[in-house]
């Protein structure tokens, strides 16, 4: 907790902390850099954990409760490490009207997990998005950052099967 005004030391030798520190420095360690910094943490580490939140909160002199409140308010931030592969199904209206619900069911069945979860072998995570703005090619699914449009159940099954060799 920020009982002193000194900047806290980096949590570990991990070089990614310097990237995080860089974002904060660029914003002059201003409190309003909290969300920007959390984005950097998530980009660098894939998720936020309490070590990171404490480090960022202490550096920016944001109360811990506020930092945690912010991190959990915005659904883009995740507190769990993602799997090796991430399948993100868009549930926007256009996709929903064109069968995104069925795709989600297929993906849940194929991976044996619910949306928001990661397989036990940490191979794959299944996520949903509110709308990724690819409505013109609905239904859309993002596989490891790459958007695929007009997705049919078959494409989805093939792609997921490729991630988890039986």
């Amino acid at each position, binding site marked *: *907790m920020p009982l002193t005004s000194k900047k806290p030391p980096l949590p570990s030798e991990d070089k990614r902390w310097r990237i995080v520190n860089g974002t904060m420095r660029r914003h002059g360690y201003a409190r309003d850099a909290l969300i920007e910094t959390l984005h950097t943490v998530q980009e660098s580490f894939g998720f936020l954990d309490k070590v990171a939140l404490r480090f960022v909160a202490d550096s920016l002199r944001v*109360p*811990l*409760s506020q930092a*945690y*409140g912010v991190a*959990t*308010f915005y659904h883009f931030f995740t507190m769990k490490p993602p799997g090796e592969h991430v399948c993100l199904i868009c549930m926007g209206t256009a996709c929903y009207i064109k069968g995104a619900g069925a795709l989600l069911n297929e993906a849940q069945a194929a991976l044996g997990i619910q949306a928001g979860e990661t397989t036990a072998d940490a191979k794959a995570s299944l996520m949903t998005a509110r709308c990724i703005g690819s409505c013109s090619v609905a239904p859309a699914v993002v596989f490891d950052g790459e958007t695929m449009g007009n997705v049919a159940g078959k494409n989805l099954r093939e792609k997921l099967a490729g991630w988890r060799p039986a």
Partner: protein
Amino acid sequence: MNPAPSVKTLMIDGKDVSARADQSILDAARENAIPIPTLCHLDGLSEAGACRLCLVELKGTPRLQPACVTLVEEGMEVTTQSPRLEKYRRMVVELLFAERNHVCSVCVSNNMCELQDMAKQLGVTHVRFPYRYPRLPVDTTHERFTMDHNRCILCTRCVRVCTEIEGAHTWGVFGRGVDAHLITDLDIPWGTSDTCTSCGKCVQVCPTGALFEKSKVGMQSQKNPDFLNYLNEMREIER
């Protein structure tokens, strides 16, 4: 000395009243013994405008306005009681009861609870909406106090008193929507918080049995938030 703020005259429920320009409708009404129900408001804390119980009708304004944050204006005509307002107020109370597990009969604050009082005052004899029955924890880790999430109405008085008066910033709000709940620091057990000063202000301002002092039951568990006015007044003098 600041120049005296200008005085506005307005009408509340047909009664002519005057108020300082920096006063809210709620302040003006209460000074004139016109009751407006509130839950998130507490004298001495900033306003949240969250409970919506204090909504009033303003002549010439289509939307209902919260009395706690709406400043008085010259010539304003305010209606604080109407069948429509009363209906909405009752619904707010119903929604709160349905949201979490407020089992009054087995609550530390039974008969000393602002939510329970509000239900009686507004004539809520039953809740028409389906109860949600969420499964919520009770944090008993603090040596003197308990946090029972089942009884919390998220008025955030505790968050505000901890931030604005005590300055510890121990309390915060986790998540959002109907899943939002109070946290201490990084969502750690209250008893392990090292920002908490154990001052107990949060307990005193809590309107329900969500925050209470251990080993105090019955009449002993009566809350007393009056210290807020004293603290604020003394601070003002020091300045």
